[in-house]
């Protein structure tokens, strides 16, 4: 591992590089297999799964915005049982690191899903999505309140020995309060951020562009919002952070690392360029060197250090 300048460890998970496919943008793996070498990625976060199948929201479910994308998929998924039976085997064979993303309408549903996943091999970590803005119950409502967020984390923590990553919402007054609550409740890592609530109007149809009216904004538009959450959370918790939001280049990755992230996830850009994650992995060593870093780990928090010195 020390020979590989890209190697990182996130909450006990050893990754060959810090680039992870973001949940919901990479299906359950096979969809992008014709275009992406999954084994080359740091890890793959699967689409979120719940206990029962969830139908998701009415279409249209996506809409382009300036440097961004609105989506209102609404966590359509076949339920954890089908996931384990039909989808996990492919990921298990893909020789990559697998992060299962978990959703629920109740704390108990989160726990039941994770308990069910515990019986399966081939999962390296659990990502708990308490931040999806596209569902009414569960999802973001757990992510906007420190106590609820902590309760979900504790419930999940109790039923798995795997690393637990809690995914934070930017749609809160104080992301640090949520981060501290889930860290105290036993999260091994945090991922930040999920999408930002937004909407668009379809002028011709005189109605909201998305079938579900509002949706989640992703893509380069939200990168500054994500960096701020990573930066502030990194200063206030002592568990690793996975940075997410608008990452498209190796420079973007280093920005997140320097802000305090240990790894990153890339989502929306894959729709346009399925090869981008691999291209970024390819470019990362030279980008790090050009900025004076020998390895990914040198860059983690590098801007944090500087700034603390500069403060009065």
């Amino acid at each position, binding site marked *: 591992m020390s020979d590989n300048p890209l190697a990182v460890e996130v909450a006990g998970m050893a990754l060959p590089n810090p680039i992870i496919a973001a949940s919901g943008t990479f299906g359950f793996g096979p969809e*992008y297999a014709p*275009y992406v070498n999954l084994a080359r990625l740091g890890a793959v976060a699967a689409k979120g799964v719940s206990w029962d199948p969830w139908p998701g929201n009415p279409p249209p479910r996506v809409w382009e915005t300036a440097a961004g994308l609105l989506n209102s998929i609404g966590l359509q998924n076949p339920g954890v049982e089908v996931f384990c039976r039909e989808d996990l085997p492919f990921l298990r064979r893909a020789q990559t690191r697998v992060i299962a993303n978990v959703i629920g309408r109740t704390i108990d549903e989160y726990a039941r899903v994770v308990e069910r996943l515990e019986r399966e091999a081939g999962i390296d970590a659990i990502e708990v999505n308490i931040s999806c803005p596209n569902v009414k119950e569960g999802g973001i409502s757990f992510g906007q309140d420190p106590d609820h967020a902590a309760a979900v984390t504790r419930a999940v923590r109790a039923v798995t020995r795997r690393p637990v990553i809690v995914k934070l919402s930017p749609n809160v007054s104080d992301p640090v309060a949520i981060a501290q609550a889930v860290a105290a409740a036993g999260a091994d890592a945090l991922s930040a951020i999920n999408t930002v609530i937004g909407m668009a109007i379809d002028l011709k149809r005189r109605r909201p562009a998305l079938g579900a009216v509002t949706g989640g904004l992703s893509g380069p538009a939200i990168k500054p919002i994500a960096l701020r959450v990573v930066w502030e959370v990194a200063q206030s918790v002592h568990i690793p952070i996975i940075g997410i939001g608008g990452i498209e280049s190796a420079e973007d990755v280093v920005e997140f690392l320097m802000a305090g992230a240990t790894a990153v996830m890339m989502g929306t850009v894959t729709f*346009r360029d399925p090869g981008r994650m691999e291209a970024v992995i390819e470019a990362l060593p030279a980008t790090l060197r050009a900025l004076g870093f020998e390895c990914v780990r040198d860059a983690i928090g590098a801007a944090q250090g500087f700034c603390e010195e500069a403060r009065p």
Partner: protein
Amino acid sequence: MPPARMVVCIERREVVARDHVELYFRHPALTAAVPGQFAHILTEGTLRRPLSFSRLDPASGLAAVLFRVVGRGTAWLAARREGEPLDLLGPLGRGFPPPEPDRPWCLVGGGVGIPPLFAAWARWKASLRAPITVIAGARTREAVVMVEDFRAGGAEPWVTTDDGSLGEAGTVLGPLRRWLASHPQGQVYACGPTPMLAAVAAAVQGHGPCYLGLEQRMGCGVGACLACVVPAADRATWPPWRRVCCDGPVFLAEEVRLE
């Protein structure tokens, strides 16, 4: 052929009507695609743009897409010149099934729904022993594309325009109903705007098989993001949707609900 990401060179660019451009690229393997399949093309903007193949010609090795300029992505595409590269994923989705050789066949296209039907007609016309009818409609004359291409191949499309500027005034529904009256068990392949497809499906119901080429806003184009869903006809089974990008874009009319 299995889908792949490829960079193709624009070999020919033709403005076929006002705001309608057809781009040809030589890619012999791609011409094995099934009519009704589509290419997901990189333009400016956050997402790729789905465009059906208008031609898939193994003889010349040329494939093509024909599109109407409606927004930023298609405007960018329309401004490409011959010799420039295009980055596409394809062929994607499930195309039309080969038509049954002994059933009368009617192809019903609206506007830029006509091009994929031209590809289907060109691919399978020789395999049919029953008569073939092409109905091509649009709002106005310049949006009825590829009529000359059908003629050059020996067909005489029934043309309709909403404003009567070409062919019969009205929609494709008129000619389709007349055709159905005389070919009650015929097979119908239709492609065009969703309201037209809904009307076609309603008209064909109770007759022969009806295949529809659907549109929906897409994210990935490969089945990963679940953006491109349309409601499944059967509300009871799971999932209650079909994905246009990989379960379609061609569906049997009974499979989906068009709202």
